[in-house]
Each structure stands twice: as C-alpha cells, then as structure tokens.
C-alpha cells in the first residue's frame, strides 16, 4: 500500500466541500451516496474542474445542475436569484468553489509529501456532454445534497511517473 493509498481522500474532501459551502454560501450540504451522473447531467449543467500536477497528478470535478449553480451564485453574492446576472457570474462562482476544494486537497497532498501545483479552474457548461477521466490510481465519487439539489464531486489522483 502506497502513501497515496493511505490518505483518507474521501473524508478530507467531504469535510472540505461542506466547509466551503457553509462558509462561503451559508449552505449546508449533507454527504450521501453519489448520485448517478444522469441525475445532474440530464439537462443543462455545469462542471467545474481544477487540476494539480507535480509529484502527484489529479483532477477535481464538481458537477451541479444549472439551477443549483444559480442558487449557489445567489447565495455567494448575497443577491436574490432573480438578480443573478449572466453565465459569467455563475461560472465564476462554481470555479471559485472548485478552486477552494481543489486548493485544500492540493495543500493536503503537499503536506503528505506530494508537492504539486494547482491549476486555475476551468468550466464546462451546456447539455448533453460527459466528462470522463481515465487512468488514475485513485478515484473517489462523492455525493452531496442540499435541501433541493444534488451535487457530485469526483476526485482523481495518481503518482507521477
């Protein structure tokens, strides 16, 4: 078993996601079974991604419906949902949430002896698309639920060769 296998990625990232949503959006998320992607990706949805590279490589993908993304934006900016502007604001908020979760994980990996750098977030936005990452040593799929919407977070990590 490698040092990477021993890391409690699931526990760490779950805690991180809950903390980010609670602090920045005043929103409680309950961890649970990861929802099937189709449940989120059925209509228009948005995927925030950050990557890290160095002694380990990896991705963090956050999948939410457009409706949930707009609710997140409303909460983070402190504006009523109807005052949320265009797509740019929504993308910025999902990207920033992803950046905070990814940054937290990257820091944990660095502290565990896997120095790496974080990428800036990228956003994929639309409908009828799938994002898949392959060839990773560790993969975690984490489900969350607020009062109305599910969210899915996928984490992929491997040691660089």
């Amino acid at each position, binding site marked *: 078993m490698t040092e990477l296998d021993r890391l409690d990625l699931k526990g760490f990232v779950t805690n991180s996601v809950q*903390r*980010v949503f*609670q*602090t*920045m959006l*005043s*929103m*409680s998320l309950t961890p649970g079974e990861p929802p099937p992607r189709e449940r989120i990706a059925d209509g228009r949805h948005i995927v925030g991604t950050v990557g890290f590279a160095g002694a380990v490589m990896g991705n963090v993908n956050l999948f939410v419906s457009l409706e949930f993304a707009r609710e997140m*934006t*409303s*909460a*983070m*900016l*402190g*504006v*009523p*949902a*109807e*005052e949320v502007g265009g797509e*740019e*604001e929504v993308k*910025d*908020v999902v*990207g*920033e949430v992803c*950046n*905070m979760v*990814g*940054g*937290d994980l*990257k*820091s*944990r*990996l*660095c*502290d565990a002896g896997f*120095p790496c750098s*974080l*990428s*800036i977030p990228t956003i994929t936005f639309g409908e009828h698309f799938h994002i898949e990452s392959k060839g990773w040593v560790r993969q975690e799929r984490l489900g969350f639920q*607020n*009062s109305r919407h599910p969210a899915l977070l996928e984490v992929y990590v491997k040691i660089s060769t």
Partner: protein
Amino acid sequence: MALKVLTVDDSKTIRMIVKKAFQPFDCTLIEAENGVEGLAAATREKPGLIILDITMPVMNGVEMLDRLKADADLKDIPVIMLTAESGKDNVVNIVKKGVRDYMVKPFKGEDLIARVRKILPLAERAAEESPEAKPAKYFTQIDDIIVLTLPAKVTRPVTVEIEGSLQSKIKEMSEASLKKLILDMGGVTETNVSLIKLIISSIQQCQKSSIAVKLVATPKQGEELKGFQETSALSVTHSIEEAKTAF
C-alpha cells in the same frame, strides 16, 4: 484620507466579497484580476494595503509578491495573502517573503477585517458619508429594547446598508448596555435570499456581542422561513408585544 485597498484575485466574486467587507470603512477599493494588473495598479495607486490571491492566470500571486518586494517604492506596502492554498511549506515560504498575514479560503468578510485591523487601523466612514448612517430610520427603541424594522423589499444593496448600520448600532448598544434586539420583518413583502442572509447575519452579529434577538414575522412568513434550511429552525413571534414578552 481614505485607505486605498488593492484586491488582486482572478475571481470577480471574491473581489466583490472583499469589497463588501470594507464597505463600512473609510476605504477606496481598487481591483485587479491578475499579478500584472495588480503590479500596475500598485505602482499607479500606491495602496495602503494589498489583498493578494495566489493561483491566477497571466501572473500568479507569488510572482507578483516577489516583484513588489523587489521594488523600493512598493516593498513596504503590507500584503495579506488570501488563497485556497494552505500547505505548510507553501505558507512558510510565502510568509518568509514578507507578507503580513496569510488567510485561507473559505473565509468570511468579517474575519478578513479582523485580520486587517491587526495590521492597520480602519476608520469607519464619517457620519455624513456613511451609507449606514442614513438608515438610522430602520432602528427605534422601546424601553431597553432596540427594534430593527426591515423595509418592504430587501434587496442586496439594502442588505449591505442594514448590515453596516447594524454593526454601528451594536457598538452603540454595547456602550449603553442594551442587550435586546427585535428584528421585525412583518412589513417585508417578499421572502428572498437577501432577506434570509440578512436575518442570519443579523442574528450572528448580535450573538457575537451577546445581544439576545427575537424575530417578528407574520404566520405566513414563519412558514416561508421554514422552507429555507438556514432559517428552518428559527423560532418566530408574531408581534412586537409577543417578542418583548419572550425576552
């Protein structure tokens, strides 16, 4: 003279949250979205404080910090890092470069202000120009109880205005040993996210100063509050008299 604060972050959302945090104070906020723009703004504006992210396109925060420290005109400007990266080695290396503080996201605006106050004095806006001085109309006093009456429509600007004025009012209350506040939302015509956030932040502000709060809402509003996770557990009274008795 107003303190110039330069916030450098590629996220407009974060810049907005930083700006909002400084709103009650006599500060001018300058924004930049990467290290190149940040350096240009620092050279041009000579800010009194820089709030700096790390992971940004074009030029990251560490490179900007290095360039700031290498510039004789800019090296003494206090810098607070505000970043999602918290790895120990990373923090130690950056602190060694001479930053005044290192704050990890996620963060609350009030926590940022508390950190800033350890470095610099922050003057509240003068009464005549303070956005929170005008809405004194929201506050009345009944015996030893302050009543905060929310307007019919609570929008984001109203929330910012009331949060700022509440901060000042709490200070006044502490000086006058007043420890009870009624938050009256009975006249609000629409229950929206701004209202929910205002209720939560008001209660939190009061709790920090050991001020007891009672919420007055109509029965319909009480039901609506239950629909929001953040306010679902709040107990509600239906009149000022009922709230007074409940203290």
